[in-house]
C-alpha cells in the first residue's frame, strides 16, 4: 500500500484529536506558566503553600488510596472465586459485575444518597435495631465518598482480575499440589504472583479513577472538596481560570506519574508480563 493511502486513513482522526484534544490540553498546561505576558510559576507556588489547597490534595489522595486498597482486598477473593466457576455461572456473575459498570455514575452515586442520608436506609435500620440512638453523619463526608467510589470501581478490578486469572493454567496449581504444597501455599505461590500484572493494572484504574472522579464526590462529598470538584469550582463558580489550569495540570502530572511508576513496578515484578 502506498504511503499516501495510509496517511489518508489516519489523517482525519489525528487532525480531529490534535485540534480538539492535544491543542486544548497543551495550551492549558502552557497557560499556567504565563501571567500578564511573562513567565511565572506563581500559580504552583500559591497551590503548594496554601493550607486549604493542600488539605484538598491530602483528602483526595487519602480517599483514592483507601478506595484502591479496599477494592483490591474485596475484589481479589471475589475474582478468584468467579474465575474458578464453570462457564455458565462465571458468565452470569461477570454480567452482574459489568452491569453496574455500564450504569450511569449519577444513578449509582444517587443510590448511596438514599442509603447513607441522615434519614436513609442505613440510619433507620441501625436506629430500629437499637445499635445507635442518633443518626450517624455519613453522607457528605470522605467516608461516603469512599463508599461511593468503591462501589463505582469494584466491578472494574473484579473483571480485570477475572480476565487475568482465567488465563492461569490450572495445571500449575495441580503441579504445585502434587509436589506437596498445600492448597493455601499453592494459592499464595502460584495464583497471587501470576495475578500481579492484573492487580497492578486494576489498581491503576481504580486509583486514577478515584483521583479524578467528579460525580461521586460532587454528590456524596457535600462541601468536602476533592481535586476534581475543586477544579470545577474554580473554573465555573469562581471563574479563576488560571488556578483551574494549574489544578488541571497537576491532575495530569499525577495521573501520568502514577501510571508510569505502576507500569514500571509491573515490569519489575513480572519481567515476562
Amino acid at each position, binding site marked *: 500500500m502506498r504511503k499516501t493511502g*495510509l496517511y*489518508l*486513513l*489516519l489523517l*482525519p*482522526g*489525528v487532525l*480531529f*484529536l490534535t485540534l*480538539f*484534544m492535544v*491543542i*486544548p*490540553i497543551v495550551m*492549558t498546561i502552557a497557560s499556567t506558566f504565563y501571567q500578564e505576558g511573562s513567565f511565572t510559576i506563581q500559580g504552583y507556588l500559591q497551590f503548594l503553600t496554601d493550607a486549604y489547597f493542600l488539605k484538598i490534595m491530602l483528602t483526595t489522595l487519602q480517599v483514592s488510596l483507601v478506595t484502591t486498597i479496599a477494592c483490591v482486598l474485596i*475484589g481479589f*477473593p*471475589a475474582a*478468584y*472465586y468467579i474465575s474458578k466457576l464453570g462457564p455458565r455461572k462465571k*458468565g452470569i456473575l*461477570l*454480567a*452482574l459485575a459489568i*452491569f*453496574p459498570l*455500564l*450504569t*450511569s455514575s*449519577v*444513578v*449509582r452515586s*444517587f*443510590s448511596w444518597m*438514599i*442509603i447513607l442520608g441522615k434519614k436513609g*436506609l442505613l440510619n433507620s435500620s441501625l436506629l430500629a435495631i437499637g445499635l445507635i440512638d442518633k443518626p450517624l453523619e455519613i453522607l457528605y463526608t470522605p467516608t461516603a465518598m469512599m463508599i461511593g467510589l468503591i462501589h463505582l470501581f*469494584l*466491578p472494574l478490578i*473484579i*473483571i480485570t482480575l477475572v*480476565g487475568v486469572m482465567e488465563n492461569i493454567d490450572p495445571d500449575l496449581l495441580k503441579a504445585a499440589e502434587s509436589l506437596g504444597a498445600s492448597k493455601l501455599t499453592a494459592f499464595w505461590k502460584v495464583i497471587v504472583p501470576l495475578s500481579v500484572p492484573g492487580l497492578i*493494572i486494576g489498581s491503576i*484504574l481504580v486509583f*486514577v479513577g478515584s483521583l*479524578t472522579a*467528579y*460525580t461521586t464526590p460532587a*454528590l456524596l462529598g457535600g462541601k468536602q472538596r476533592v481535586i*476534581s470538584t475543586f*477544579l*470545577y469550582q474554580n*473554573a465555573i463558580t469562581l471563574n479563576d*481560570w488560571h488556578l*483551574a*489550569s494549574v489544578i*488541571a495540570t497537576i491532575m*495530569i502530572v499525577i495521573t*501520568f506519574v502514577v*501510571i508510569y511508576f505502576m507500569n514500571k513496578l509491573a515490569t519489575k515484578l513480572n519481567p515476562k508480563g
Partner: protein
Amino acid sequence: MQEKNRGLALFTSLVFLFLLGPLIIISFTSFEPGSVLKFPPEGFSLRWYENIFDVEMFMTTFKTSMFVSLLGNLLALLLGIPAAYALSRFDFRGKGILNGVFISPVLIPGIVMGFAMLKYVIVVYNLPIYAGLLVGHTVLMLPFIIRVIASSLSNFDFAIEEAALSLGAGRLETFFKVVLPNIRSGIIAAILIAFLESFNNVDISVFMTGPGVSTLPIQMLTYVENNFDPTIAAISVLLMIFTAILMFIIERLMGLSYFTKR
C-alpha cells in the same frame, strides 16, 4: 477445601449484594407514592414516572443527550474506522505513537479534558456550546470505537482481503464488500459501548452546558441539588432498563470478554 470454598462463596455473594443492592433499593423507592424518598416505599405509585414527562427539562435534555451521543458516534465511526483499519492492517513507523495518541483521551482525566475544551473549543475557537458538546463527545468516543473495532479486526483473516484483491476487486470495493461485513458485529458493539460512555458522561458535559443546552446526566445532577423526590429514582430505573438492553445486545454480538481484557 470445601469449607474454604463455602466461605469464598458467601464472601462473593456479599460483594454482589454490595454492588447490586443500591441499584435494587433505588428501583423500589421509585414507586413511593409520597414526595420523600423512602425505603421500603409506603405504597405503589407511578406518579414519579409521570413527573419525568411533566418536567420539561428532562425531555429536552434527553433529546440533547440522544442527539449528541448518536451524531458524535457517527463522527467517531467516520474518523475511527479508517484509523482502526490502518493500525491493525499495516506496519509503519510511528505506529506505536499513533496508537498512544488514539487511546490518550481515556488517559487524560475527564474533568481536565472538559475544562480544556471549555477554554479552547468554546472560548478560543468560538464554537457554539452545542457544537462543543458534540465535539467533546466525539473525542470521548473515539478511543472506544478504535479499540473495539481494532480488536475485531485482529480476529479477521486478512488473507480473505488479499484473495479479493488478487481476484481483481479494488481496494475500496474490497473494504466495503469483504472487510466491513466481516467485522459488522464488532462495529455494532463498538457503537453501543461508545454510546453508553457518551450518554452517561458527566465530566466533559458539565463544562459544555449553557443557556438552554444541557444533557440528561447534568440535568439529573442539577435536579438532585434542589429536589430530593423520587423522580431521579424513576429516571434511574428507566436508564437501567435501557442499559440492560444494550448490554444484552453487546453480549450477543461479541460476548462480554471485551470488558475483561485490559
